[in-house]
């Protein structure tokens, strides 16, 4: 049985590299789509330029998905039944960037016998500290 987190505990992702190959896999649609990848600002240089962006940027959903991985690692199956994530995308990421995610337990409270609700502050930043996302997460754990 995993140990329950306590207020102040911090979960960290380590450095996550952003690659164009993985942006294509995430945002390009199924590999077997005729003409793959789907052309959008996440997969196509011309579409990005048309949108006023010099290079394709990673989907914000892709960064959120990494955050879910971090929280699932911390809270297990409970995340998929009670998890709540509130994320603001501050700056985009492009191929060649790297970032790291952090989730800090801000609050722990009993909801009833055997159920604990956690509130976490979440953030993502480039190695130089530039914020890319920020927000909160909540999850209930039965014990």
């Amino acid at each position: 049985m995993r140990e329950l987190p306590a207020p102040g505990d911090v979960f960290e992702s380590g450095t996550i590299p952003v690659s164009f190959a993985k942006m294509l896999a995430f945002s390009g649609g199924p590999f077997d789509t005729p003409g793959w990848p789907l052309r959008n600002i996440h997969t196509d240089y011309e579409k990005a330029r048309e949108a006023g962006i010099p290079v394709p940027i990673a989907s914000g959903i892709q960064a959120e998905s990494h955050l879910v991985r971090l929280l699932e690692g911390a809270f297990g199956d409970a995340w998929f039944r009670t998890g709540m994530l509130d994320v603001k995308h501050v700056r985009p990421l492009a191929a060649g960037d790297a970032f790291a995610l952090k989730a800090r337990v801000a609050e722990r409270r009993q909801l009833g016998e055997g159920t604990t609700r956690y509130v976490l502050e979440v953030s993502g930043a480039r190695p130089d500290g530039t914020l890319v996302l920020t927000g909160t997460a909540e999850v209930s754990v039965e014990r």
Partner: protein
Amino acid sequence: MLQGESYEPLTFVVAEEYNEQYVFAQTDYSERYLPSPGKEAQAHPGLLMQMLSNTRSPSYWIPGGIGAILGSAQTKFLRPAYVGREYKVTWTVTQIYPKREKQYHEITATMYDSAGDPVMERKLHVTYVPAAE
């Protein structure tokens, strides 16, 4: 789209290969997302959140020269989803509001399983800007 209007819903089946594409994209080789004898593979959350994007609606359209930006999102995970099962996604514009001289649409996207039970809900806060902006 006006407040209260809905996009055309989408019904889809989580294909094993598409799920594994998200496993690769996120370098997330957790056994929960991979098929194994006697156990259903869970749908990757990246795939699910992607399918709740309003761009996935068959009726999604924006004029040329306009870009859509996802500013923020609130997501509720309500039950796991699985590879090989069918799901339905609905989208409704639940609010239109101004913020920092831009107009934002709050779009509530909900994914249901075949029993009609909600699997995931996302409130997407999207703004539409001229492409050059």
